[in-house]
């Protein structure tokens, strides 16, 4: 069953190459995927092995093409992938003459992302992500806008190097664990890795995964790439594919918990670089798309903060992991919605320069409403999904904290808690840039560019509405996702089932 989630987009891509109608096939495949994904997620809590599959493709060392919903994090990311993939393919406006390339690439990215999150074998987990990267590079280079070649070359080099460093870390991890298998359950059940090796592996993993997630200071590929990329590619990469790095860190964390613990202070400094430094850079952006690109880099800092809280506590922090997962989901949906709508603004007005825009709300009220909703979500307004994630992140920073009044103030806090206090200012920063951009674009007097702009048609609204529903559902009822991660009734987590 799960294999269909990957095969549907792949087969659709092949069918399009074979001459089927590009848009129809792509929308149909991702739509079917969305339905299938929702059904599987609904059935998963009763049957955690649903649709899993395992084929041994290599004996020495044992590598399996195994798919499965490993735990609630996988379910959440799978849902995120199918929702964003459908929205991205549905909302993209393809330039005439490149339909095949456009839809085939998007489908391959979607298939790679879904495959990575469904893989329960480290090897294919890594491989599917690489599969998704190549079409990403090609799309930015061929069909991007603005300074596309420069941006595409930059993202290619950064991510290729990040992947190589990551691969080195993963191979070392497997070799040090002594397991003769790449399957997650075997790896996680394998004996502990000696501490000196853990430091090295943790460093490689942090740099490798960190580059893929645009952790400061390896982030400078992200904003230009998202600004130049075609909208569906930005949506898929910023929304879904980038989460691969965080997903990998959270998944492999138990194996190198001690190693990562020693890097936490440095990690806190880097993630504050994401939140504060990149936040300031974001305020300074003059174009809507590069502002969104930078904001997406900035928000990665919060998720890293949750990861740092988890790592600092040695894994004891029970809300850090749910916080990270909810925020990954929320950010993926909200940034995809923002990129989709900013693409609409570009088409309606012909520009994304903030100073050339203004008063768009008058001509396009629905667009303004939906964009406003996504912007509010991105800031972290209560009632929308990002709020649930961010509040949990901040709470996780102070989980199990008891003030010791007899100590000097500085010694009352750990690195993560100090980081949390600084990171709170990020909320102010994101409110500043988002509200400014909204005001510049939609409010005030209409300017020539926005005077006769067309509003969203019913069909064009659909992807944004689906994303908005996801934001609202998770925002109003966060348990919809948290129930996957902390199943209320299932006593044993999948981890402990792996011994057999």
């Amino acid at each position, binding site marked *: 069953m799960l294999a269909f989630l990957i095969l549907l987009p792949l087969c659709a891509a092949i069918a399009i190459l074979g001459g089927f109608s590009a848009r129809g096939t792509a929308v149909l495949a991702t739509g079917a995927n969305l339905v299938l994904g929702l059904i599987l997620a609904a059935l998963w809590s009763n049957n955690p092995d649903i649709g899993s599959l395992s084929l041994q493709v290599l004996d*020495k060392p044992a590598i399996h093409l195994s798919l499965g919903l490993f735990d609630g994090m996988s379910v959440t990311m799978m849902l995120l992938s199918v929702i964003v993939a459908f929205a991205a393919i549905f909302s993209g406006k393809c330039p005439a003459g490149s339909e095949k390339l456009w839809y085939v690439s998007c489908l391959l990215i979607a298939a790679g992302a879904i495959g990575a999150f469904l893989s329960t074998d480290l090897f294919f987990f890594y*491989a599917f992500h690489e*599969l998704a990267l*190549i079409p990403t590079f090609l799309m930015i280079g061929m069909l991007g806008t603005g300074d596309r070649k420069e941006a595409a070359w930059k993202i290619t080099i950064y991510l*290729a190097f990040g992947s190589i460093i990551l691969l080195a870390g993963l191979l070392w991890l497997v070799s040090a664990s002594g397991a003769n298998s790449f399957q997650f359950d075997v790896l996680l059940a394998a004996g502990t890795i000696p501490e000196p090796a853990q430091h090295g592996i943790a460093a490689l993993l942090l740099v490798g995964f960190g580059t893929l997630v645009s952790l400061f200071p390896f982030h400078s590929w992200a904003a230009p790439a998202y600004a130049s990329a075609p909208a569906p590619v930005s949506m898929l990469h910023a929304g879904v594919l980038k989460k691969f790095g965080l997903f990998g860190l959270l998944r492999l964390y138990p194996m190198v918990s001690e190693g990562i613990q020693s890097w936490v202070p440095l990690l806190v400094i880097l993630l504050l670089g994401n939140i504060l430094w990149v936040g300031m850079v974001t305020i300074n952006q003059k174009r809507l798309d590069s502002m969104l690109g930078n904001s997406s880099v900035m928000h990665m800092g919060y998720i890293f903060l949750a990861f740092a809280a988890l790592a600092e506590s040695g894994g004891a922090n029970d809300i850090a992991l749910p916080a990270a997962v909810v925020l990954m989901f929320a950010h993926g949906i909200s940034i995809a919605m923002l990129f989709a709508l900013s693409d609409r603004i570009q088409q309606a007005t012909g520009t994304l320069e903030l100073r050339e825009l203004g008063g768009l709300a008058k001509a396009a009220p629905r667009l303004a409403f939906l964009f406003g909703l996504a912007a509010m979500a991105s800031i972290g307004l209560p009632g929308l999904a990002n709020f649930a994630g961010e509040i949990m992140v901040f709470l996780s920073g102070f989980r199990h904290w008891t003030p010791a009044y007899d100590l000097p103030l500085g010694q009352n806090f750990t690195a993560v808690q100090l980081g949390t206090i600084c990171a709170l200012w990020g909320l102010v920063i994101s409110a500043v840039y988002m509200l400014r951009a909204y005001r510049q674009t939609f409010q005030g007097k209409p300017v020539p560019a926005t005077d006769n702009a067309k509003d969203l048609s019913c069909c064009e609204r659909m992807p944004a509405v689906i994303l908005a529903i996801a934001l609202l559902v998770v925002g109003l009822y966060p348990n919809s996702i948290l129930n996957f991660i902390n199943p209320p009734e299932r006593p044993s987590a999948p981890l402990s089932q792996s011994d057999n």
Partner: protein
Amino acid sequence: MSPYLLEAYIVLVGLVILMLEAFVPALRKEHLGVFAIGGLVFGLVLLFVAKAPAHPEGNVEMARFYAFDSQAIFYKGLALVCTILVLLLAIDYRAILAKFTENPGSEEGTGEYYALPIFACAGMMWMASAQDLVSIFVALELVTITFYILVAYMRRNVGSLEAGVKYLILGALSTGFLVYGIAWIYGTTGTTDLSLMAERLQALPSATPALFGLALLLLALAFKIGAVPMQLWIPDVYQGAPTPTTAFLSVGSKAAGFIITLRILKPFMDRESVPEIAQHTTFILLVLCGLTILYGNLAAIPQTNFKRLLAYSSIAHAGFILLAVTAWGKGSETTLSTPQAVGFYLATYLIMTIGIFFALVTIRNATGSEEIAAFDGLGKRSPALALAITVLLSALAGLPLTAGFYGKFFAFRLAIDADLWFGVGLAFIGVAAGFYYYLKVIRAMYWRTSDDTSPIAISPIARYAIGTLTILTIILGFWPNPILWLLGA
């Protein structure tokens, strides 16, 4: 059927082609190529029929020189497949070959170009079986001398002639090293038989003379496999030689070089019986492999000619394979042995590289150029060809889900298990550089535009060959087991 007849049969095919060329001038040259391919395909069938003689005592003198184990069969098959593909490539290349004949445009005197690779193939097949320094020398010379002619085949083309001279001089030099090394080893151990070498080495009072001899042998082998310090000829010769010869050099000759490297090193790398010699040998190999990886990958970065790029990439791949050789794992329940990893790497390397050379000949036929700039805008001109080249180049770069990944993966795994952290570190730098220069070509195809936007004409041979090799690259990327079965893993 006795295995000795295999090579005899192949030589016979080559002689028949030569006779046809000499005495039936009316025959069209590409038909010669087709005959040759047919003969080799039959040879491939014979390979499966051939069985090692049940009573080797019957022919003791021959059995001493000639091994017929699973490894030998694998490399014989590799040589045959490689030669068949190279002959197909040569048929595709004949228009360019015809430009440099006595009457430009005619195919006069190009018939030997289909016979010579067969002799080289016979030499490579002997190399696959050679287990005595003498038979190694003889087989290796058959290959090398054939290649002197093949490299300089377009003798009216200055580039090809220059390549021929360079190859001749360095080839002769390396032969000198080889003979000198054999003499030293024979002098110290009293035997040229590699199966006796292990116990003789154990009994040596001092390892130094044997190690000196081995160092000389390694120099000669480095010439064959294209490793530092004998790598200097590669870029110029690859660029100047006719493209089918280049493909043959870069795959067939390299593979044959590696099989004899494995056979020669086996007694010297035995860590149990000769720990001291093994330690020294590992150190020498580690230095060679590190330098080869760095030189090949870093020097490839600034290249603008695609053939030169492939030349440096072939040095780089030799470095990665050497990494597996340096690690010298014996294999276990859970890991591959070094010969298996090397064989796997070479088999996937054959598929990817020959595919790329087919694409290169197609591009050369259409644009008349072998520069990377000739690939500009290919994504728009011929999307299918561009897609295939993208897959093949990604595989050469070692991207997961392509055949190229597993080769590197096994090599790195062996090196990590052998604690060769220095080599692994350099190898990762090499892979990172590799991504850069292979992607440069992909960038040219998709992100640049060319003035000429007409589709590239692809000959039927090239279309089927590129298609098959690309699909194989992808299938083996998901499911590498078939090659490992052939290797007996």
